[in-house]
């Protein structure tokens, strides 16, 4: 198991994702002798997990069942323990494509936060790329490094505990792409420019507030970035439902002369309804996560 390569069976010290049902997942550190409590009962790692195929159904002690899934960055994003507000898959997917990420890409990122985007980047740039991620909070940077190690991706990432606005990313002239998710990205634009390759590269800054966007766009222009583009992506979920719509009852048929085919077509029963499959939007939609500013650093 690793977050960048699939394997077939669950092994000791793997990180697996337990799927409990609709929108409910939890990560589990697989260990001989360990147990995990779920609402359906207890899962015993040694007998229920280790040696089983990923994707298997596991019956818990109370009789209910769950599925054990191979970890992916997408499953990790919805199950990881939050230390900060995280980026979700919709934004991550857009960022990945718009930064032209692919195997071999060298990426600089700050702040690491809870590592949601980091894992997605690592998956995309493996096996030949590298991620330089900067986090100014000591415990968070240590926790991230720990997780990268457990997830068997340490060889692809370097975590630095420093302030990107003051000290940059720790590397210069190597990055194909830079990502900023910090309170004052305009202060890091200079360092971002330095980190990018001389031949040019892509930049993305994520900010929840429009004022941050404005200041960042200005800083980007001042530093010579081009193709500055600001956008936001919103996910709309369609919940598939069977709905039953009753038909109106207009009373018994009162026509004066009996229709010739009155015998063949009986009047619709007054208690009829039509059942159909349709979709409905969920009660609440996430309406805003943040604005994404993309830019290109031209060749210098």
């Amino acid at each position, binding site marked *: 198991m690793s977050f*960048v*390569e*699939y394997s*077939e069976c669950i092994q000791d010290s793997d990180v697996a994702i337990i*799927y409990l*049902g*609709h929108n409910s997942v939890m990560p589990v550190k697989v260990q001989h002798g360990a147990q995990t409590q779920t609402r359906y009962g207890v899962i015993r790692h040694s007998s229920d997990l280790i040696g089983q*195929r*990923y*994707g*298997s*159904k596991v019956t818990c002690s109370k009789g*209910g069942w769950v*599925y054990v899934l*191979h970890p*992916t960055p*997408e*499953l990790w994003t919805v199950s990881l323990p939050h230390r900060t507000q995280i980026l979700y*898959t919709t934004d*991550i*997917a*857009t960022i*990945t494509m718009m930064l*032209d990420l*692919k195997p*071999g890409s060298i990426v600089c990122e700050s702040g690491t936060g809870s590592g949601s985007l980091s894992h*997605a980047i690592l*998956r995309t740039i*493996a*096996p*030949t790329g590298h991620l330089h991620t900067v986090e100014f909070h000591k415990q968070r940077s240590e926790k991230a490094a720990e997780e990268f190690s457990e997830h068997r991706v340490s060889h692809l990432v370097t975590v630095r505990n420093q302030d990107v606005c003051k000290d940059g990313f720790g*590397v210069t*002239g*190597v990055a194909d792409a830079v990502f900023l998710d910090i309170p004052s990205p305009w202060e890091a634009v200079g360092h971002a420019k330095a980190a990018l390759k*001389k*031949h040019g590269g892509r930049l993305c800054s994520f900010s929840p507030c*429009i004022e941050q966007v*404005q200041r960042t*766009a*200005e800083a980007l222009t001042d530093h010579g970035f081009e193709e*500055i583009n*600001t*956008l*936001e*992506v*919103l*996910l*709309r*979920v*369609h919940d*598939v*439902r*069977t709905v*039953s719509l009753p038909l109106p009852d207009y009373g018994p048929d009162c026509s004066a002369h009996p229709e010739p085919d009155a015998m063949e077509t009986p009047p619709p*029963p007054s*208690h009829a*309804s039509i059942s159909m*499959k349709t979709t409905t939007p969920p009660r609440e939609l996430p309406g805003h996560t943040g604005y994404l*500013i993309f830019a290109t650093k031209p*060749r210098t």
Partner: protein
Amino acid sequence: MADTGDDDDDRYRIKEGDYVVLKRGDIYKSVQILPKKKVIFEKQWIFLDNAVGCLYGDTFEIGAGGGLQPQNTKTTESPPDSKVAGTDNRNIIDDGKSQKLTKDDIEKLKDQGLRGQEIVQQLIENSSTFSNKTGYAQDKYIKKKKKKYENTVTVLRPNCRILAMMYHGREPGKICHLRYDTLAQMLTLANIHANSKVLVFETCAGLVLGSIMERMGGFGTVIQMFPGEGPVRAGVESFGFPAHFYETLHEFPICHLNALEAGTLNKRPVAGEKESTAEEEEVLPGADQQDGSPDDQSMETVSGDAKVQDQKQKEEEKRREAKALEKKVKLEEKQRKLAAAAAQLDGRNADGLVIASRFHPCPVLLRLLRFLSPSRPFAVYSQYLEPLIECYTKLKEQGGAVGLKVTDTWLRHYQVLPNRTHPRLLMSGGGGYLLSGTTVASERSAGSLQSEEPAPKRQKLKDTLG
């Protein structure tokens, strides 16, 4: 590990034969750099020869005659040093007479070889209302004129982002109206990454396939399932992948899926079969003739004309022989490729499935899911919502998949300028829909204990027939 001079530069140099993307503003066009080849871009004829040897990302001016010239000075936004401007538009009358230059005048300027920037300058000087406009209106005016009279083109290296935007802007019909952000979602939701085995079924001119190949970086395996006679891959060429990427690409015609699963795949491609039998028929009489003719020749009395005729016959037979051999080699190659693809599928251990086509997604999805290992993601695109509702419903009934979601994305662009920040367009509903999920160990379990869909609300009145 900073860049080192010329060696790295070489990777960024435009070479003859390269597939590139031409760009001006928001307009993109994919072309191949071929010597002396005329290319139309934005109603202009261009020759790309001068781009060879330059670096990707370079911008060129289009000279008279269509040749490319390097851009001398970057067009810098002229700082509003002594900008005379008004405060609002209450006194500006739009009578169409404020520009003193006529269309002919502008054409003359163009013929004189004036660059775009200079023409714009001329327009500003000859506009009677320009100095009365507000500063912002002046900026807008300049931007508009620049866009119209700009004579530049940038040469870019193709990639998924650029090609997806290009196809969506130019030929959305060819890609089933798949918008680029939807494509981005698919690539991530299906966990496309290096060293995995991905199944693809697409009728998007190869854009989806190419995007997947880009995200796999030449590592792993891609099996393209295709309908009809042959896979459409024009879009893949535009990516300009190195040759070794194609070693990871397999194709398998879906018309052989039944045979594959029954184990009766006779290894003869239907597409080629008709051809080959016809050709074999062609060849056979030729072969007979060939065998026959030396005897005939020796029997015939050799006259001058007969000799020439024999010569011609021999040459024709040689050609036919060569052709037959070529066809045989091609057929064998085709059979070998088919067998290789079949072997990849037989394991039923693919790591991901992506479907994006004009076909009804339901039968495609239900059929191809069998080739995935358990605990692997899939993403299905449809221009319309209803087919995906059907897929969702059928999958729920049959089991074997969890985390099913039907989604679409809204994309909104913003104009960000000091005091002029606001959203631009809301591209809603035009990007298509996605169904995504993860496979699990399948067991036909009709009616799961823990239903995912909440039970439909009971009607208060008497309902349902009978």
